[in-house]
């Protein structure tokens, strides 16, 4: 199902900070949104930022079809995202969307979603869609401390929330793969979805592979165009270099060379 890509103006309908460097942007369109798959992303134009020449690829956090709103979960990492954080309600934002291939959606199965850092961004919409598909959804969020566990209440709406922090300030103590969910009967899950730092995703994918469960990961390689023209965002796959923007950002971990080690 190839949906036509669009380039359109949205206006900011809401913006709220989750902590000093992370915020949610809600972008409203005047018309009905096209079908958007969880895991797909947008390329956002950043105006008046002289050092931000390219658009910013950002994963889609949630979609509200009733109100034609796409939410983005953004961490401030440089000038571009900082400029976005300064935008005000009703400001215009130009986006190219929906881009890339999303997650494989299971039906009526038990699934595990794992997210670390701003990698949790696409998992909210994913959890929503999986719940819609009558899946039993477990969501494991990881961070260094309780301050890094963001939007827990939102995730709770779509599944059973599990938490792990490195300092033990919330949930279980330890790294994500040390969580007890990985220690017993991982086979009960039909699929494990993962988004976060690459090492975290590799570790989760290894455990999934050992338990012979399919796992999907979402990559965030730097990109210029987002539509498969520049060939800058490639990742090593079993079929050679592939563009993360068109063949991904979601890949089955068994396809990725760096995930086989």
């Amino acid at each position: 199902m190839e949906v036509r890509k669009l380039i359109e103006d949205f206006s900011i309908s809401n913006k709220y900070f989750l902590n000093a460097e992370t915020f949610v942007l809600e972008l409203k369109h005047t018309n009905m949104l096209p079908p958007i798959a969880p895991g797909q992303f947008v390329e956002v134009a950043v105006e008046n930022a002289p050092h931000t020449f390219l658009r910013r690829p950002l994963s889609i956090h949630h979609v509200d079809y009733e109100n034609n709103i796409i939410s983005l979960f953004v961490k401030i990492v440089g000038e571009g995202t900082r400029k976005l954080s300064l935008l005000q309600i009703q400001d215009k934002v130009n986006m190219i969307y929906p881009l890339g291939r999303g997650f494989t959606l299971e039906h009526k199965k038990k699934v595990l979603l794992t997210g670390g850092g701003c990698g949790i961004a696409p998992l909210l919409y994913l959890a929503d869609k999986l719940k819609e598909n009558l899946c039993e959804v477990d969501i494991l969020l990881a961070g260094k401390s309780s301050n890094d566990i963001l939007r827990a209440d939102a995730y709770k709406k779509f599944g059973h929330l599990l938490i792990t922090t490195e300092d033990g300030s919330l949930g279980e103590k330890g790294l994500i793969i040390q969580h007890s969910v990985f220690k017993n009967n991982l086979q009960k899950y039909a699929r494990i979805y993962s988004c976060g730092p690459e090492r975290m995703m590799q570790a989760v994918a290894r455990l999934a592979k050992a338990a012979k469960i399919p796992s999907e990961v979402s990559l965030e390689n730097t990109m210029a165009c987002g539509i498969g023209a520049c060939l800058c965002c490639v990742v090593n796959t079993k079929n050679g270099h592939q563009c993360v923007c068109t063949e991904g950002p979601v890949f089955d971990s068994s396809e990725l060379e760096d995930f086989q080690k």
Partner: protein
Amino acid sequence: MVDLSVNIGKLRMRNPVMTASGTFGYGFEFDDFIDVDSLGAIIVKGTTREAREGNAYPRMAETPMGMLNAVGLQNKGIDYFVSDIYPRLLKYKTHVIVNVSGSKIEDYLYVAEKLNDLESIPAIELNISCPNVKTGGMAFGTSCDSAAEITKAVRKAYDKTLIVKLSPNVTSVTDIAQVVEDAGADAISLINTIMGMAVDLDSRKPVLSTVTGGLSGPAIKPVALRMVWQVCNAVKVPVIGLGGIMSAKDALEFILCGATAVQIGTANFIDPRISQTIVRDLNTYFEKNNLKSIDDIRGTLITS
């Protein structure tokens, strides 16, 4: 009625707006956003004899008003192009030009000969200016002898319109342009990217896997304008200007300097509609200023 048509060798284009190789895929990537047939021509990805995986990631670094790339001519090779891509390109009514790249003269010849047989490919752009491959590429375009040798050889093997794309990474671009013209090129396009690099202070490493890459975008426009102006004054064949064009105004600056046509490159990454927007805005400019054809403005830069 505005007539924006121009001639490049045997090629008649409905307008002077082309897309630069490596920035427009095969055109398909842009079908959702524009009517590709509204452009004067499209130049598709650099094509080599053998399939190439290109360089390792990271291959791109954003820089002030521009970007560095080190893609390294990733493509599936000419045989795949002929069997799988060419048939899909037949839907376009505009001219489809293939950028020809390689490491050895024999490789360029192999690709050029294959393309000579494709009825719907009316021209090639000889890439003797890619800064991102270890052998060949830019090496051919940075000395007069090798630029002349490869142009002559391809000229013999290819009888449709031959465009040669020049590197800015040379001491005298006019010397190279003149030998390429003498060797039989029908047109010259310039500039390819300017060699540059980006450094990550935190990791104390270069950003690109290849250390150096090619700089493009508005950051290089002044260099491109200077070189296009110099080359236009040094050769008789049509010159196609490129380097940081983001608007019709930019395009017109190149035409003022003597360019017959222009290529839109990096701008396609930021706004996939930009090439068609530039065609529209050129029309508007010509109407407003009562210009009838490109020749009314081409090369009319007032320097004294």
